[in-house]
């Protein structure tokens, strides 16, 4: 079954005519994703390869039945792009863009409350159900279709490293979700674990976290109460100095909270198998799953 995206996903790409948009749309199409439309204001009527480009999301949805949007719009305009898709009734929005002002995302998130649209990201690599649909910038060939393990992560390339180690040991993935490195994001660990738990095909999950915030602590408590599958956890940033933003806007230890050590401790307390050395993650997964 997998979660959030599958072969029924009809994808539209916002920012399709930009450099990133074009490159990654082609990669998604090559992987087998059903890309039905693109949106770039002012370029309506044109085509990007075989994909029709529209001026607005509403028109794209009306004409193509797109139900998912992948956003490559630059930071000053990205929040607006999300709101446009929400209002057009898109069911899943994935935002790759890094650098969106926090205030913009807070407004978007409050606006989306109660609406049926799910937002993944921003500042994320996207989501992939290997073998069915790639909605993002991740390297498709690193993934192994067929499951049974779900992966959810705040990172980009670190996620690929984790997936690579799983694939190398013959452990396939049902769905891999990058929830993003920003402090305010649309979908969190709990949302993903909840959905993975209810998914027949997923039998275990790897959580990839990092310093900053309390998302890993919160999902640990959720897992202890609600999740029956085995979970492996990894936290990046044990050696990160406090008070510094480590690349990701959300990766910052502030006021003593959000340290990697604390997250690891809470995960262990709640029955999560914690990998403390990325070099040996694959071995741990092979033994747990």
């Amino acid at each position, binding site marked *: 079954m997998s979660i959030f995206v599958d072969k029924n996903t009809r994808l539209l790409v916002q920012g399709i005519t930009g450099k990133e948009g074009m490159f990654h749309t082609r990669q998604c199409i090559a992987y087998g994703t059903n890309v039905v439309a693109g949106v770039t204001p002012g370029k309506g009527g044109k085509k990007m390869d075989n994909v029709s480009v529209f001026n607005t999301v509403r028109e794209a949805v009306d004409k193509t039945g797109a139900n998912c949007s992948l956003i490559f719009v630059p930071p000053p305009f990205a929040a607006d792009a999300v709101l446009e898709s929400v209002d057009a009734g898109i069911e899943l929005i994935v935002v790759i863009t890094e650098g969106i002002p926090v205030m913009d*995302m807070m407004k978007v998130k409050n606006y989306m409350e109660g609406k049926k649209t799910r937002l993944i990201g921003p500042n994320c690599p996207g989501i992939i159900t290997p073998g069915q649909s790639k909605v993002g910038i991740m390297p498709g060939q690193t993934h192994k279709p067929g499951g049974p393990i779900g992966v959810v992560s705040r990172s980009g*390339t670190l996620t*690929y490293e984790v997936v690579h180690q799983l694939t190398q040991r013959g452990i396939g993935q049902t769905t891999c979700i990058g929830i993003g490195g920003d402090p305010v994001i649309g979908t969190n660990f709990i949302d993903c674990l909840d959905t993975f738990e209810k998914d027949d095909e997923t039998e275990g999950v790897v959580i*990839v976290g990092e310093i900053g*915030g309390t998302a890993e602590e919160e999902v640990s408590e959720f897992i202890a109460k609600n999740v029956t599958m085995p979970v492996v956890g990894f936290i*990046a940033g044990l050696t990160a100095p406090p008070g510094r933003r480590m*690349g990701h806007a959300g990766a910052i230890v502030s006021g003593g909270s959000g340290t*990697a050590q604390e997250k690891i401790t809470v995960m262990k307390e709640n029955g999560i198998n914690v990998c403390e050395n990325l*070099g040996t993650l694959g071995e741990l997964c092979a033994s747990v799953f």
Partner: protein
Amino acid sequence: MKIHEYQAKVLFKQYGIPIPTGGVAFSSGEAKKVAEKLGRFPIAVKAQIHAGGRGKGGGVKLAKSIAEVESLANKIIGMTLITHQTGPEGRLVKKVLIEEGLNIEKELYLSIIPDRATAKIVIMASEAGGMDIESVAKETSEKIIKAYINPLIGIQPFHCREIAFGLKLNPSIIKNFISMLNSLYKLFVEYDCSLVEINPLVITVEEILIALDAKINFDDNALFRHKDILEYRDIDEEDPLEIEASKFNLNYINLDGNVGNMVNGAGLAMATMDTIKLAGADPANFLDVGGGASAEMVENGFRIILNDKNVKGILINIFGGILRCDVLAKGVVEAAKKADIKVPVVIRMEGTNVEEGRKILSESELNLITALDMKDAAQKVAQIVK
């Protein structure tokens, strides 16, 4: 992005938030001029650095005469101020804020931050002002009053009342407090702040509300729409290597160890640092070269890392996925030659054409060692710097 107390107070003044009378001084002569305009004593001489704990560190003093203002300014300007937030190396003080002293009756705490979990703007207030708020939060969190504000509707009168009554303010002060709180929220929102903090917010004996300290941090992601704030940036407060790296759009943080490292992706970069430490060595830096791994980026990365004289070995960890490793390997060899690298370099690459890439590296005449995976890479580089 951080700014100094005196700059934050300029913004406070713009928004009508009450501050002590005073001005910044870059020399004892300037300090004297500001003090002479103030007219009465005591006068505070406060070191201006981007770190808290200045008082405890000896960077905040009270003067009872103009001569004392001058001598204190002389002492503090040029001192290396060490506080619990600067690290043992401390920070060089280049300016002081000269302010009128206040007759303090009560000290409150007031701040505004974005709450990532709820996506709301939080106002935090406490009667425990003038203290380390983190200790207050840890030991007596019930003393902190919070109001969560939906940014779509903004601060409402009831939010202000919750805070004002929660602080048990004298009725005579409540109106001014609420007006100030509204202005503070407006500043927070209009300037895309990541923190606005007044600690302490003073109630004087004369029942006047004054922000004795002012701290404002700005959301780096929003600076593109606040060019005026960029002018407040103080390069002296930043690490020179980090400033250099930002010119190349490289995300670099200088650390204490001797293993330089270069990785594509912040999460992977943090994990790589951790792996180096677990292998028994110490990372010299954090360096995220971003998504597009290219020869130019590698060359810039090498230059930045090598500017740190502590570096005895370098680890490159590039997970490209679609990236062609033979192309990257050629780039690494070129870059290593141009940067004239004398220390050994361990390279771990993943992507397409991995074997070709490894061959190119081993056939170059440089000390480029290939690693099979992260475990192997960390062990190899730890061995080198031992």
